[in-house]
């Protein structure tokens, strides 16, 4: 059940210009949280900015959760000014989280566009947990795509988890000069894998998701994508954050933010 917590900031660090990682002491949120869920954060005490900001949980630790975010407006600017010891009013964990399917597909492919790495990190940690014991483990590959090398995040973190990481930048300043989806196609074909053996976990811009859903048509049952949208309540009450799906409008805060890859209608 979602709870409201007046939590405490343990640490905040600016990783790259305008990109911050905050660690929040919140044992009950950490205990309940699953990868893919988010927290709804009050930014400041004022009536402006008014609404909470929904931010993906990046990492789930024993007694804390971490968020990774860019400063893009009033709310995130206020968040970025918080220091260790400051309080932070959060509601969460919210949303449905990723499903980790065991045993069916032999290749787990994480595709992150820009800040899409944030919801996928907790998932990556969950995939690599309990990797011991007889049974053949799926191959784990991560494709990180962004505009430039300054926008590529968490490459080392994914590598540390034993994941095969590949980078694509639009300007070629790091990794391959192409889109994340082009790199994904290249890797799958160069290793002679079949798309039907792949389970995709993706987060990133709509055009990226659209390409992936076309690639995985007919074999996407386990593949999932995390979405975001402007939110008011964050609880499923106001119907403000809907996305169009094969089964009609669904709430990103409650029915999502994780949906089956081919469920969402990508315009």
């Amino acid at each position, binding site marked *: 059940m*979602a709870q409201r917590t007046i939590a405490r900031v343990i640490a905040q660090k600016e990783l790259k210009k305008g990109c911050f990682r905050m660690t929040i002491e919140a044992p009950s949120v950490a205990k309940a949280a699953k990868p893919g869920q988010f927290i709804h954060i*009050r930014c400041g005490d004022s009536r402006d900015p*008014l*609404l909470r900001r929904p931010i993906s949980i990046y990492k789930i630790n024993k007694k804390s959760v971490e968020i990774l975010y860019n400063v893009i407006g009033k709310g995130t600017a206020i968040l970025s000014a918080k220091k260790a010891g400051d309080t932070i009013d959060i509601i969460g964990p919210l949303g449905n989280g990723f499903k980790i399917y065991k045993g069916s597909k032999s290749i787990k492919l994480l595709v992150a566009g820009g800040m899409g790495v944030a919801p996928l990190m907790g998932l990556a940690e969950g995939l690599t947990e309990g990797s011991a014991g007889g049974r053949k483990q799926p191959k784990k590959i991560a494709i990180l795509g962004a505009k430039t090398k300054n926008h590529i995040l968490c490459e080392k973190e994914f590598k540390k988890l034993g994941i095969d990481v590949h980078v694509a930048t639009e300007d070629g300043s790091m990794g391959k000069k192409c889109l994340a989806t082009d790199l994904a196609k290249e890797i799958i074909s160069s290793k002679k894998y079949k798309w039907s053996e792949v389970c995709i976990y993706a987060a990133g811009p709509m055009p990226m998701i659209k390409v992936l859903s076309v690639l995985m048509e007919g074999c996407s049952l386990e593949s999932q994508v995390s979405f975001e949208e402007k939110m008011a309540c964050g609880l*499923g*009450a*106001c*119907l*403000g*954050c809907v996305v169009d799906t094969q089964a009609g409008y669904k709430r990103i805060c409650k029915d999502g933010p994780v949906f089956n890859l081919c469920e969402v209608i990508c315009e």
Partner: protein
Amino acid sequence: MKPNLKTKIGNIEMKNPVTVASGTFGYGSEFESLVDIKNLGAIVSKTITLNARVGNKPPRIAETPAGMLNSIGLENPGVGKFLAEKLPAMAKFRIPVIVSIAGESEEEYRKIAEKLDKDDRVQGIEINISCPNIHTNELIAQNETLTAKVVEAVKSATKKTVITKLSPNVTNIISIAKAAERSGSDAISLINTITAMAVDIKKKESKLGNITGGLSGPAIKPIALHMVWKVYHGVKIPIIGMGGIMDWQDAIEFMLCGARVVTVGTANFVNPEASTEVIRGMEDYLKAENIKDVKDIIGKLRV
């Protein structure tokens, strides 16, 4: 001595004059783990229509200075599914349930009212004639004659307490309020959202999929207060006031302007406990002012 917070709207007995606004609280269950719903004076449902509505194209939300725009488009499962699936959850809080209804014609309003009239779990009906998001040529709430017809139609179909919710997007809100009163409305609630817009200059598009939306939140409070004040002097039936109430101080302002009951809406998104905090704050204020009964401050603005 504990001040008396009990009040009454039509036949609805409320243990305090605080409710939550239609559209901001779903059907209650979404907020259950975050606020003590059973402490509210009443709960008002999301607007129900005769048949299910899919709602407007996203994006449906945009933040504005000290406020927000919404363009939900009355997405709802229709009255049948509401009665079967949503009302049971609302009823279990054991507080008065007011169902907000809307239709495309007075016949539709009448049909919904008829269905709700049979159900003991419903204590009141709030007629939504003022939602600015449906594509009609004129809002019912902008026309005295249409307003009167709809209220008459609903009153003819039910003995339950009928509340007419007014739109601020009008030239003369007193005349609309009087039309509702003449037609038998038991109470008036106001204000609904103000038609407004927000623009994305990068995309050169409206921030809302539906282009326009309804403005709510602290930014509209001064407008809402004025309209409550005006309508209080225009009708004799009780007034339910709303528009940007964030805390108990805001609520007291509305009561001094003439509201018998106050409603918390957008604030629920910011602080899920805003409504119950208003109740507590109101009680403390009355104690501090040595006022024995909350009804004693209604319309007591000194002029």
